């Protein structure tokens, strides 16, 4: 297992270097002088310009700049936001828990609904419920989630008034952010109603973000189950008189899990991309909204750092998913 792990990690190194080149190259491909670009509309005195040029090192050879960038990266230095003047690295990790909280709730919802939906569909293949579930799943899969979010706001916040429109918690509550996860923080704050408010704020964004992964998981579970249900050992189990449900849960489901785990792992990228739209619609203060805001404010160090960190996280999660297969299916380790 350890050897497998080392092999997988060593495969990631060239990809990671590629990611750093993309993030590093990003600011340098931008048309125009990067220093003037970062200074914005206000303009610069020649002395200040000279100072900034030296500070960023744009007057040195490009490979020297790149190694300098890598060296700083290794020390967790990703530069400072032009707007807030905070280090990009620490800003990212202040906002990251909000995105993680949303993403975890969304993926849990997607798994809890998607798995049973796929299993029911597969076990009643061709029935009305199969067609209804798969039809709904295809609509979910085709959904423009930014529109879906607006629609839910119209119905549940506008017409029914059940849920708030934006943010993570009502402004009435204030407490220390110990963990960064609003659900946990509001629970331990012991304030009346704080937890309820956090939950209410979380419902709509979770539904919106979960929609596409939910549809994908349901479709994938169905097709994986159908493939397994046609295998000889499943037929044998049925033939020796085991009940349908026992065969499905004990014999088929475990083997159908491998492609489903893949899909769940691949959803992490989808979730982070979806978070960009979901967080923008619901003003959710996570990294998705942070990236969009930074792009429109031309806060390039933030865009650069965020890009790198998000790609690195996706990469690590995919590695973890690969390791999970190694555990579920030992044969993969030796390929």
């Amino acid at each position, binding site marked *: 297992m350890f050897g497998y792990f080392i092999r997988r990690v060593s495969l990631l190194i060239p990809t990671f270097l590629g990611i750093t080149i993309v993030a590093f190259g990003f600011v340098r491909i931008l048309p125009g002088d990067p220093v003037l670009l970062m200074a914005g509309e206000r303009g610069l005195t020649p002395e200040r310009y000279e100072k900034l040029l030296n500070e960023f090192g744009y007057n040195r050879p490009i490979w020297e700049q790149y190694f300098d960038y890598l060296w700083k990266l290794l020390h967790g230095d990703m530069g400072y936001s032009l707007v807030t003047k905070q280090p990009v690295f620490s800003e990212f990790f202040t906002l990251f828990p909000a995105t993680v909280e949303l993403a975890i709730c969304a993926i849990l919802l997607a798994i809890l609904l998607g798995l049973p939906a796929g299993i029911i569909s597969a076990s009643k293949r061709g029935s009305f419920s199969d067609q209804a579930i798969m039809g709904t799943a*295809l609509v979910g899969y085709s959904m423009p989630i930014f529109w879906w979010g607006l629609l839910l706001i119209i119905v549940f916040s506008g017409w029914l008034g059940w849920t708030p429109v934006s943010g993570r918690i009502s402004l009435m509550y204030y407490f220390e952010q110990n963990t960064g996860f609003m659900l946990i923080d509001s629970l331990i704050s012991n304030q009346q109603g704080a937890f309820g408010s956090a939950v209410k704020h979380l419902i709509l964004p979770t539904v919106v973000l979960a929609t596409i992964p939910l549809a994908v998981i349901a479709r994938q579970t169905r097709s994986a189950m159908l493939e397994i249900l046609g295998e000889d050992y499943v037929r044998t189990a049925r033939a020796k008189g085991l009940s349908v449900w026992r065969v499905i849960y004990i014999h088929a489901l475990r083997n159908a899990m491998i492609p489903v785990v893949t899909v769940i792992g691949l959803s992490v990228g989808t979730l982070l991309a979806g978070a960009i739209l979901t967080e923008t619609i619901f003003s959710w203060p996570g990294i998705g909204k942070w990236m969009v805001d930074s792009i429109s404010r031309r806060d390039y160090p933030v*865009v650069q750092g965020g890009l790198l960190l998000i790609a690195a996280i996706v990469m690590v999660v995919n590695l973890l998913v690969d390791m999970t297969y190694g555990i579920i299916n030992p044969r993969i380790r030796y390929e």
Partner: protein
Amino acid sequence: MLTPIQNHTEIQPESQNVRMQLLREFWFYFSENRGAVIGLWVFLFLVIVAIAAPLVAPHSPVEQYRDAFLKPPAWDAEGSWQFLLGTDAVGRDILSRLIYGARFSLFIGFFVVTMAVISGVTLGLIAGFFRGAVDVVIMRIMDVVLAFPSLLLALVMVAILGPGLLNAMIAIAIVLQPHFVRLTRASVMNEASRDYVTSARVAGASPFYLMRHTILPNCLGPVIVQGTLSFSSAILDAAALGFLGLGAQAPTPEWGTMLAEAREFILRAWWVVTLPGLMILITVLAINLMGDGLRDALDPKLKRS
């Protein structure tokens, strides 16, 4: 089968027949999927509407009627038959904008998929055929592109290139392309060791001829399926970029851009928000339905015997 050796001209009608039969078989499996057929009809309808937009649209998509701001659809008590689906905040007819919007979305899908397929299939062919260092370089670059969430990478690329529809399309094509590279490479590697390729090589076919005439036609099935799926994700991503203000710019009647403009009226005028999104959903759904049917008809693994 032992058929007498025929000369080249006599083989022609035979292969034509085979092609017809393949096409008929394809249609048989495709039309078995009811959803796919419905998707095809909806898609054809949208294509016709898009082409005939100047003829079917009741108004110009950019003309502002100053006496009709935020008019509700015709069936509403305050609506009028002049504006069937109402008007937006500056008095433009929504139905006309939606009809012209079909042009943009279908063109975006077509353009992006064409670009991604041409570059992706070419790179995939090269990587799978030559292997070695070329393969390693191409595939590592594709791995890097795939490491980023697609919308994020498109967003950042548009930030570099500057907002606008063309730049958004280029960015989306670059993001979608690795899928075609991987797919083509995998099927090329699968096909390259087959006997018919070896015999063509022995017969003296050049590498280019082998790639273009011998291997490529046999790898196209999965590429077509992936192309259909990419068509719908291109439309979705372009609409998302438009919604974030980085795709098509303001007066353009692109559906995502229309949604972005309508956002502030979301609780006052439901029609300006719901209708453009509904069009995106219907278009994407129709294409995905077709894609499912295509996959069933072209994927031999799932084909029922």
